[in-house]
């Protein structure tokens, strides 16, 4: 092996999650790297990676411990650019020109050592001064090479520091929610964007990225809700945030699966390796999965979020799954999960641990073919809504959730709203989405859609006119 080579397994180990690795892989293109260099001693790699902006990101990696720094705004550490730089070196070391270590690399390295020493004392002598310090400690402690036992102790200390930081973030969140109640939900709209952004930043500092995302998204949820329902939706959102904070503090009283939901909601992530080997993971479920739809949504952090919904017939119901992928917005046209609605996959999925398992990854794929239609649901509309309610009772943090029901007819209300109703018209859901009207006047429809408790956005349907795949429309 070449001097100070980087094994791919090491890169996989430091990657924050599978999507970061996937995104890094897409950066292994010559044209994206105007600069790739290393020093003569093989201590550092550095380069410039062209992102979506005009100025390339500056990336540096210390080969010994894979400590990294990038000028991109990603909240992930290491980011995809850092991972890509490591990956380039692992696969094509000849691409790196030898050069003198630039000042900015030396400065970073100096800071890194300096911070590491300072925080070492802090962590041994008591709690860190602030959340930022805890994060710095986590980064700094990564830097030092050590034996496995020492590394395990280090990870435990990092974890403890993050828990402390999150605890502080949760307290801030509660104060913030109480402040909103004090001021009144009626005036929330006027201050929503600024207030949510401020708290989201603090929660990022507190390493509670999941909560930060919820806060970031809250103004969007609030303003896209019809005015008459905004207060209720806001109440639900604030209530869910507090409930999440409270549940996090009382994890010992929760079941193992729900703890996974709570920790995931706050911001803890699982790597693909952890997911496939972890004790909380459901067994891999092999089935003939029908790809119902792929949705894309641009997030506030400029990442495109891809949700792919799958369904497979199970013993007494339809089993659902959702694959989640991310890609930079600039690359969204060519990126994405690569699964086409209306395809049937013979595949094994591994679910993320959850009290209400839905998110999954494809553990193994065996074959694919065009699906004749989506699997036939067993529930009628009322049963599907009851099932949704039962899921909320178990996991109150679910929101848009895929449901499926049979025997629906699609009609119009007097105000022009599309509704899916059961045969006797007693139970119904309004349909959202710009394409719901294509289902109008159809009877005996088996409908798949995501339900938020108030509206159903169609994903796919079986009808007398054949299968409907919303992603094709």
């Amino acid at each position, binding site marked *: 092996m070449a001097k100070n080579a980087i094994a791919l397994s090491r890169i996989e180990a430091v990657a924050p999650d599978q999507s970061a690795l996937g995104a890094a892989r897409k950066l292994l293109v010559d044209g994206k790297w105007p600069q790739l260099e290393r020093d003569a001693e093989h201590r550092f790699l550095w380069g410039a990676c062209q992102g979506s902006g005009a100025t390339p990101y500056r990336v540096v990696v210390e080969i010994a411990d894979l400590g990294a720094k990038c000028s991109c705004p990603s909240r992930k550490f290491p980011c995809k650019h850092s991972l890509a730089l490591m990956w380039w070196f692992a696969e094509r070391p000849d691409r790196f020109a030898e050069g003198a270590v630039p000042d900015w690399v030396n400065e970073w390295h100096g800071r890194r050592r300096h911070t590491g020493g300072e925080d070492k004392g802090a962590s041994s002598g008591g709690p860190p001064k602030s959340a930022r310090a805890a994060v710095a400690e986590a980064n700094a402690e990564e830097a030092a090479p050590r034996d496995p036992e020492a590394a395990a102790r280090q990870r435990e200390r990092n974890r403890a520091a993050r828990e402390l930081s999150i605890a502080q973030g949760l307290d801030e969140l509660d104060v913030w929610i109480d402040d909103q*109640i004090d001021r009144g939900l009626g005036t929330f709209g006027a201050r929503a964007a600024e207030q949510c952004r401020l708290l989201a930043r603090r929660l990022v500092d507190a390493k509670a990225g999941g909560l930060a995302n919820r806060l970031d998204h809250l103004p969007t949820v609030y303003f896209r809700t019809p005015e008459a329902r905004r207060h209720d939706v806001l109440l639900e959102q604030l209530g869910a945030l507090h409930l999440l904070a409270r549940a996090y503090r009382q994890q010992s009283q929760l079941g193992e699966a729900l703890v996974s939901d709570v920790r995931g909601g706050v911001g803890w992530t699982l790597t693909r390796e952890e997911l496939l080997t972890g004790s909380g993971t459901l067994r891999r479920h092999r089935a003939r999965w029908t790809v119902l739809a792929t949705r894309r949504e641009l997030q506030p952090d400029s990442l495109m979020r891809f949700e792919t919904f799958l369904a497979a017939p199970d013993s007494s119901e339809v089993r659902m799954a959702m694959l989640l992928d991310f890609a930079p917005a600039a690359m969204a046209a060519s990126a994405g999960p690569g699964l086409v609605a209306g395809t049937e996959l013979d595949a094994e999925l591994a679910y993320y641990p959850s009290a209400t398992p839905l998110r999954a990854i494809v553990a193994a794929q065996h074959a694919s073919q065009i699906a004749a239609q989506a699997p036939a649901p067993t529930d009628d509309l009322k049963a599907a809504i009851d099932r949704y309610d039962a899921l909320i009772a178990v996991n109150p943090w679910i929101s848009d959730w895929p449901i499926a029901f049979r025997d629906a007819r699609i009609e119009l209300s007097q105000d022009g709203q599309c509704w899916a109703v059961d045969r006797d018209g007693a139970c119904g859901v309004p349909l959202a989405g710009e394409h719901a009207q294509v289902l109008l006047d159809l009877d005996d429809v088996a409908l798949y859609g995501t339900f938020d408790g108030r509206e159903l956005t169609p994903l796919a349907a079986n009808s007398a006119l054949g299968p409907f795949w919303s992603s094709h429309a």
Partner: protein
Amino acid sequence: MTDEEQARVSDEPSLERARIGLRHTLILGTSQRPLEVPRWLAGENPRAGRLALVAALGLRSRFDHPVPPPHLRRAGLKHEAERLMSREARAALRRVYGAKKRSVPRAVTLRIIDVLAERGLSLHPFDFPLLTDLLATNDAALDRNARMWRALTSGNTDNAAPPDAIDDANWTDLKPAERAAYLRQRRRAAPAAARELLAATFSGETAAVRAQLLEAMAVSLSGDDVEFLRGLATDRADSVRTLARRLTSRIAGTSEFDERMSTAHERLELKSVGIIGRKKVLMPKLPKDLAEAKVYAWLSDSFAGVSTTLLAERLKLKRDVFVEALVDERLRALFLANALSLDEHDTALAIAAALEPLEARRVAAGARDALAALEPTHRRAFWNAFAPALEAGGALEERCVFAAELYEILRVPPPSALLDPAATGKPFKRWLEALTNDANRDQPEVAEIAIVLADRAHRAAWRERLNDVPPATASTALALADLFDALDLQSNKTT
């Protein structure tokens, strides 16, 4: 059960009853209206109690689901699975309109709509969201569900359903252009009944619609219409009064007719030109001080609606000589429109056949409404009439562009010979060379028009030719070839 648990159970109904009040308090803000939280919920910490209450109320709200309104209704779409395009045709159609790189030529879209209508096939409703360019034409030949979808998605959820069959009872529900087309059709079959239909609703229409509908009276005009037309002399719109006078002047035996024929005769100058003076030329006697901007109005006032046959008789010219003598393009355009509207088809065909390529495009565009109003059998003949102009252009792109323009007007397929690959070999090679030599040149519409207007046998040859065309230029044309092949296959299976 502990005392605390007992307190919770007994308090839950009261929490539910107080929900609305609590919600109101939270909207106002606790600084405005203090919140009383049950002790079992608040414990020793008032803030924790408030937050717990928010969580409880928020969670409870999650279980509120909408209830369907009592009067749901059908939108009026008619789903006939057996009439839907085949899966293969749908896939090809989505390739044509799904690429979104550029818009599909209107003639191509109209040809697709017409072929579907001829074969009694419908677009699949599930494809509507992808076919916005096609649906945007809102053409009368577009299938019923597609037109309804367009109305529904543009917010018109009331009376979006067009009638299944148009008759005298429901024709007023149509759009003005469709009503005029229906009136023309009725005039051909039963002129008197059509006139009565028009008279029954005429006064309630706007001036623009009255004029548009009155134009339809030009079909099968006869002495029976004189009374109705003269009755419009008191119409409140000048445009309607003028049009009624002009229509009356087309009816032989009326004083208006005689006056108009005399005026037309007087305003034409017949000259003999050429070395031996055997060639006749007809020129308008334009007033010397007439401004250029007013020439067309003067010509129209002098000759619009005048019978070419009767005018030729007055000038003592045979029809062919009369047509040959129309050397002024403006006169040719006017007399073509006159011949078309007065059912003098042979004259109209003779005028069309005498046109040069560029002039033919202008004249055809000018006579668009009159050509479009013809019966399909008559419209078909105009492909042959324009054939000399179509073929004289030489370049394939000119031929295809003019053919596309004519198709938009005539809406019947061209004769097989027009796009016979054997007859277009050289123009095709020249076009291909131009594409190859000029990297910036991109004329996909040429290939697309050729594919959709060629008949079935020639389409296969055109598809072969596309193998030589750069893929980016040929991609939509190839999708169109797949579409038409799939539609042919579906029609064969059905028959």
